[in-house]
């Protein structure tokens, strides 16, 4: 099961938004007790059941690569970070609901990561600014997660959630808003858990449909899943 089924998902966001706590919660179903600064990259692995509850259920390891740092770092740090952006299958963008700047920086984070292996369609993205076309043609699934929901006062909640809904729309992605110190937000069966599961399923589908088109011989499970094109996969 180890080397063939590799799925790599990046977790990006500003310093201090709660990426390490989030990754810990997603992978170990426990709250991180002592969050500290992430130097470089910290990886964790989540065991995910693809298409859970259906006859074609299969278990995958999803690697969550939590890359630390700030989006305005020196170019030397950015080129060092770029080594982690190879062959990614999905991106989770994390922002802090109490800090508007962290949400705005998500555009730059996604540009930094997507420019690494962008299919050359002739789209010029200059100095990391937001480019609508880039996200429209993007093949890599994105998910936007807002943290520190508990620190938003009840009265301001509606305004903040509207803002984040626009943000997620810009990225053409789903969004989840939660508090990383409380596991009940991702409890099984909750809408957040469903969204998360759907995101990981999408990542796995995109990854293996690509492999399918390359026609790598000798992959035994291929025939079990893919009768034909992607459209054949809609189970009700």
């Amino acid at each position: 099961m180890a080397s063939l089924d590799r799925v790599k998902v990046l977790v990006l966001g500003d310093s201090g938004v709660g990426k390490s706590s989030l990754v810990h919660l997603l992978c170990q179903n426990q709250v991180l007790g002592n969050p500290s600064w992430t130097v470089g990259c910290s990886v964790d692995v989540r065991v995910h059941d693809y298409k859970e509850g259906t006859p074609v259920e299969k278990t995958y390891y999803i690697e969550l690569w939590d890359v630390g740092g700030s989006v305005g770092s020196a170019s030397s740090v950015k080129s060092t970070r770029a080594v982690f952006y190879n062959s990614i299958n999905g991106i989770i963008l994390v922002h802090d609901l109490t800090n508007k700047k962290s949400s705005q920086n998500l555009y730059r984070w996604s540009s930094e990561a997507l420019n690494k292996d962008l299919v050359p369609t002739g789209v010029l993205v200059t100095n990391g600014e937001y480019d609508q076309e880039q996200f429209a043609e993007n093949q890599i699934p994105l998910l936007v997660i807002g943290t520190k929901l508990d620190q938003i006062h009840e009265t301001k909640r509606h305004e903040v959630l509207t803002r984040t809904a626009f943000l997620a729309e810009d990225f053409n992605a789903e969004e989840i808003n939660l508090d990383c110190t409380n596991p009940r937000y991702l409890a099984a069966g909750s809408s957040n858990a469903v969204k998360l599961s759907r995101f990981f399923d999408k990542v796995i589908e995109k990854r293996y449909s690509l492999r399918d088109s390359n026609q790598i011989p000798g992959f035994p499970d291929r025939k079990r899943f893919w009768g034909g094109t992607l459209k054949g996969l809609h189970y009700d």
Partner: protein
Amino acid sequence: MSFLIDSSIMITSQILFFGFGWLFFMRQLFKDYEVRQYVVQVIFSVTFAFSCTMFELIIFEILGVLNSSSRYFHWKLNLCVILLILVFLVPFYIGYFIVSNIRLLHKQRLLFSCLLWLTFMYFFWKLGDPFPILSPKHGILSIEQLISRVGVIGVTLMALLSGFGAVNCPYTYMSYFLRNVTDVDILALERRLLQTMDMIISKKKRMAMTRRTMFQKGEVHNKPSGFWGMIKSITTSAPGSENLNLIQQEVDALEELSRQLFLETADLHATKVKFWSQHISFILVGIIIVTSIRGLLITLTKFFYAISSSKSSNVIVLLLAQIMGMYFVSSVLLIRMSMPLEYRTIITEVLGELQFNFYHRWFDVIFLVSALSSILFLYLAHKQAPEKHMTP
């Protein structure tokens, strides 16, 4: 009347400085953060404004601008305000924001921040004891007492920073000069980093699987946290969780390694990216060489006049030519390092297979030896000189 004009000039300049500090805070310092407590921004800008005004007053003093009595008034005013800010306002707010970050003390933060401020004042006052500060004839809360203590702290800080900067700056600059980082080095290091990440991932996969099977079997993995946790883990230990702890330790070591590798790679990237500094350093080295050629020629000329006679002049001229030639050839050797890459190859081709690094190391060693001996020599010379003057 003139006092009013002078005050309005001062106030305008203060407002300008305040605006500048405000902009700097917003654009540079708090670039990635949201300003929620405007008090902080105001205090920062005010401190900046009054500090700049002090320098401005010094310049006015030298230039003789403004009426001297109004200058005196503004000096006093400025000093009082700055001392108030530095001794009362800022320490209090520092204490307040520290206390607000701690969840436990959140309820009575005013009380605790006052306590913190009183502790600060106590130590601040105690600071005066070992230093030669004005005698207590000026009263407890006078300006002189406060300034003297602020002066001690400020001067210590400046000296610390200068000392560190004096050593650090040439150290990093020399390392950029002398290290030649190639793409191959960076790629090799990156590959090691990714390999380490892969090892971490495979171990974490095992851990995740173990945890899952344990969860399905109904066992619970308790991380040994705290004193009682450790005691419990000694007596009752499921084999699964023991295995997990072992792998966790290996993972911790690997993660530490990956952090080190990441930092090394970032360092290499930083050294490599110094393209412009190469060009600038080339210009600087060029200037140094031109001046040293000129200096060399002048020194040689003086030397020549000093020691030559009709018989030995030929020999001495030839000796000087020898020294000059060797000096210039070695300069070419050393300058190779500071040249942009595309020009370096011609020198390498022409000069052949030389161990360039050796020459740089050798240069360092002799430079160090010569610098130390010059210090020694100058020190002795300095000591000798007053004695020479003393003895009639």
